[in-house]
């Protein structure tokens, strides 16, 4: 199946099934299996805006070093219901395999209620054109014709067997359906059963009964496969990280971790996908013990952070601002629709100079749009949010590690510069799990800064003191009388409409942004990946980073050498570093997951440089490294202006 050396290992597989059917749990067990085996992984979930019943799937990639992207076709697919079979039968590569439930294979397409109508229509047409019945069985046949090895599991029988070997009722045993499918797949991919069992035990941890039942189910599945399909050709070698402690975290979780490490003391939120898991994770860890080095300094053992669920996003941002003026280190977290409601408050935070971090988990718009799908459409909206002349810091993270450190940095910047910091992340990052090692998120690499936070202001304290760097000392409430305001004001926070003071205060706020632009090092503004002398430059931002880095390797193999300008800080915009790179390139290709090519617009607006070529993905599905590579290649070869990719069910 694959060689004995682990360095060529590159496994991709998917698990599909109805929402609420344990897809995510199976995906996590799989990730844990490979991590235990010494590999690095990513896994990402595609799901609809639905709680139960609609199709969703989890895609995994396994490599010796951290994989940067998923792509299709996969080596293996676990597709245990008819809808999954029909959704994914062309997603498996030649010589790969597809594990399905042979007992539901006769299902007719038109009877599958949750299946999206347009897909139904396309499938029916597809089979009709081939003279085949519109059923799941036909899909299995087509897969076989395409050289895919299909593994039919008689799920009804296997489940019954599990039930008969435990005393558990069938309804509970049915929940092992995914384990059966998953264990089969993992086993056929060359994972020894003991690793699978260890992963199951790790995953369900304390729940002994569940562990036992799932291990039994896995054994029964493996037995069946051995008997009927002869098992795998050979076993997967151990990966290079065997025995290494590994974190498996989603983007939501890693940002929450960054916030806690970064000294967040209060987070407000109103639930929204794909943001709220961040806040819920925070809430689950709101009480914490201090690390030894901190305990020693502070002589404190425990502390806590407040996570406040508010009545809406207006309240989320306003109570965050309230907490900030009181002296808390504060953030809120939302997605596009929620951020839209925060616009007026952003404007207040800028005028009143209130520090706050707003983590924006972008998703597919406009409006409710594709609420559980990927989107990178909120760059312009967040950057130009709020009425009035409204500069604010906007930073976008490219991957989990950046997101973790950016969360810390955003809190630092917010307090140092007394301004809202918008931290742009997205659904793909939110729901992608990756493996991380200790050096990736080392707490001692982070510093926590508060800038001109004065705990003991004097009596002559002036909230809006005019200073050379544009930054006035910030005192918490509760020390001396002071005034904050959203009206134009004199140094003491009293409102004024005096034209001369107005001009002075505008100039003060402008100087603050000059300070920010100067103090943030270029290296935190943009990153040029790859050979600086490459003739072709790819430009992108956000969670496309690791995907593009993978694509670069693919392109290199095809003899196309590119470098990649990753935009990190959008405001203050790094004009020179960006221009330096772009004017050096012969061909610049912008890669974004929005239709307006928002970053390219900003580049032109801030630098005058015009990008002429675009790769876009708008379907809300994860971007693949292969898609990027193909699209870039096509542009290089044909000079096409725009390539829209759309892979993924």
């Amino acid at each position: 199946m694959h060689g004995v050396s682990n360095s060529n290992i590159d496994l991709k597989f998917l698990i599909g099934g109805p929402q609420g059917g344990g897809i995510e749990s199976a995906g996590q067990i799989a990730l844990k299996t490979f991590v235990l085996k010494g590999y690095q992984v990513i896994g990402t979930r595609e799901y609809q805006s639905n709680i139960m019943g609609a199709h969703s799937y989890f895609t995994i990639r396994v490599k010796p070093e951290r994989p940067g992207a998923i792509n299709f076709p996969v080596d293996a697919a676990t597709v245990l219901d008819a809808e999954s079979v029909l959704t994914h039968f062309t997603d498996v590569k030649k010589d790969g395999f597809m594990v399905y439930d042979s007992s539901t294979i006769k299902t007719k397409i038109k009877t599958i209620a949750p299946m999206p109508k347009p897909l139904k229509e396309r499938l029916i047409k597809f089979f009709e054109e081939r003279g085949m019945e519109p059923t799941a069985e036909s899909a299995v046949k087509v897969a076989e014709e395409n050289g895919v090895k299909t593994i039919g599991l008689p799920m009804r029988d296997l489940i019954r067997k599990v039930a008969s070997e435990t005393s558990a009722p069938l309804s509970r045993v049915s929940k092992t359906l995914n384990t059966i499918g998953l264990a089969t797949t993992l086993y056929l991919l060359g994972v020894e059963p003991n690793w699978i069992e260890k992963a199951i035990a790790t995953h369900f941890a304390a729940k002994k009964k569940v562990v036992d039942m799932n291990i039994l189910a896995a054994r029964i599945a493996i037995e069946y496969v051995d008997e009927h399909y002869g098992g795998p050709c050979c076993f997967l070698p151990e990966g290079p990280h065997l025995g290494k402690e590994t974190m498996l975290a989603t983007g939501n979780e890693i940002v929450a971790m960054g916030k806690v490490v970064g000294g967040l003391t209060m987070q407000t939120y109103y639930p929204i996908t794909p943001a709220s898991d961040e806040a819920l994770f925070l809430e689950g860890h709101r009480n914490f013990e201090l690390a030894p080095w901190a305990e020693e300094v502070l002589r404190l053992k425990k502390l806590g952070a407040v996570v406040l669920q508010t009545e809406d996003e207006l309240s989320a941002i306003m109570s965050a601002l309230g907490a900030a003026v009181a002296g808390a280190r504060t953030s809120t977290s939302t997605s596009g629709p929620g951020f839209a409601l925060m616009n007026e408050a952003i404007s207040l935070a800028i005028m009143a100079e209130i520090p706050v971090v707003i983590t924006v988990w972008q998703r597919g718009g406009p409006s409710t749009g594709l609420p559980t799908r990927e989107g990178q459409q909120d760059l312009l909206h967040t950057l130009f949010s709020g009425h009035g002349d409204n500069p604010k810091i906007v930073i976008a993270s490219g991957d989990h590690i950046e997101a973790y450190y950016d969360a810390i940095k955003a809190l630092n910047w917010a307090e140092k510069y007394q301004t809202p910091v918008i931290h742009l992340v997205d659904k793909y990052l939110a729901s992608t799990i990756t493996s991380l090692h200790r050096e990736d998120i080392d707490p001692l690499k982070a510093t926590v800064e508060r800038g001109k936070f004065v705990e003991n202001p004097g009596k002559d304290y002036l909230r809006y003191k005019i200073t050379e760097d544009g930054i006035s000392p910030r005192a918490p409430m509760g020390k001396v009388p002071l005034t904050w305001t959203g009206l134009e004001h004199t140094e003491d926070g009293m409102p004024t409409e005096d034209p001369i003071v107005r001009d002075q205060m505008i100039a003060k706020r402008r100087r603050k942004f000059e300070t920010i632009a100067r103090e943030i090092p270029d290296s935190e503004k943009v990153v040029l990946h790859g050979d600086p002398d490459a003739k072709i430059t790819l430009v992108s931002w956000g969670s496309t980073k690791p995907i593009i880095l993978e694509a670069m390797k693919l392109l290199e193999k095809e003899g196309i050498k590119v470098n990649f300008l990753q935009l990190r800080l959008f405001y203050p915009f790094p004009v020179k570093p960006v221009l330096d790179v772009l004017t050096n390139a012969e061909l610049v290709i912008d890669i974004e997951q929005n239709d307006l090519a928002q970053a390219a617009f900003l580049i032109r607006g801030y630098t005058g440089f015009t990008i002429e070529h675009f790769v876009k993905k708008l379907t809300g599905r994860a971007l693949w490294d292969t898609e990027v590579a193909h699209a870039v290649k096509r542009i290089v070869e044909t000079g096409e202006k725009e390539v829209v990719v759309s892979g993924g069910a």
Partner: protein
Amino acid sequence: MARSWLDYKTDAWVQWCPGCGNFGILNALHRALAELDIDPSNLVVVTGIGCSGRSCYYIKGNTIHVLHGRAIPTATGIKIANPELTVIAEGGDGDMLGIGVEHFVSIGRRNLDITVIVHDNAVYGLTKGQAGPTLPSWWQTKALPGPNLHDNLNPLLLALASGYTFIARGYAYHVKETKELIKKAIEHKGTSLVQILQPCPTYNNIMTKDWYEERIYYLDQEDPNWDPQVASIDDFKNKMGTILEKMLEWGDKIPLGVFYVNLAKDTFEQRLEKVIPTYREYPPAKRPVSANGKPLVDPWILFADKVVKP
């Protein structure tokens, strides 16, 4: 030693129209603060936008002038971040019961210990006299191009339905009585409302000083045994009928005073303390965030649930 009301005055020009009820409210508040001897350094006043919203510039304390309708959520953040502060949220009827009614209602679910003061002139003063949410339908005040088509809200009943645990109504020109109501509201542990009937001589030419003074009376003057406290289920059964009747009374007679006090509910701060043991001592605004610039936690310990151990 005790402070005088002058200690709560700033030297800003108070920019209200001559005869505006806001002067009385401001004065009552200054005096309440003085009599409670609240340290201005520990006092927070959050105001929304409107004539009334300007109050924050006339009160010595930690003040913040925020957005129209958003005084309550701002105050919420402040109080939660530092529960030792005395926090007052102030605004007009439009601010609190129009654009801000979202928060006016929702704070009731928390019983957070803040005092909400509504300057109720039944018009949108600062935007030149449009109908406010407490202006009865078919009345046409000076600046309206036609009669008001909206019914008036009853702030007291709304507060009750929302969960406020202290509900009172005062009258702007009765500085002494209003001062007492504000004092009680501030002293009350939990979310308290003081609706203050406030003549606006410039735009509300119907609900004038005379109009009010013909109608208002004090609950505890009419009934010396008036006791708004609801402490038990029995109290609830015995008193709610009368309390609701008084809350609903609005017309030829308008009652003033404390309508309702409920001491049975935990404040939000107390609730937070139950789930975050270190909250009282180290609330968000008063907590270390680093140890000499280094983080306080080790994610590999705190987030052990995310770590796969070999």
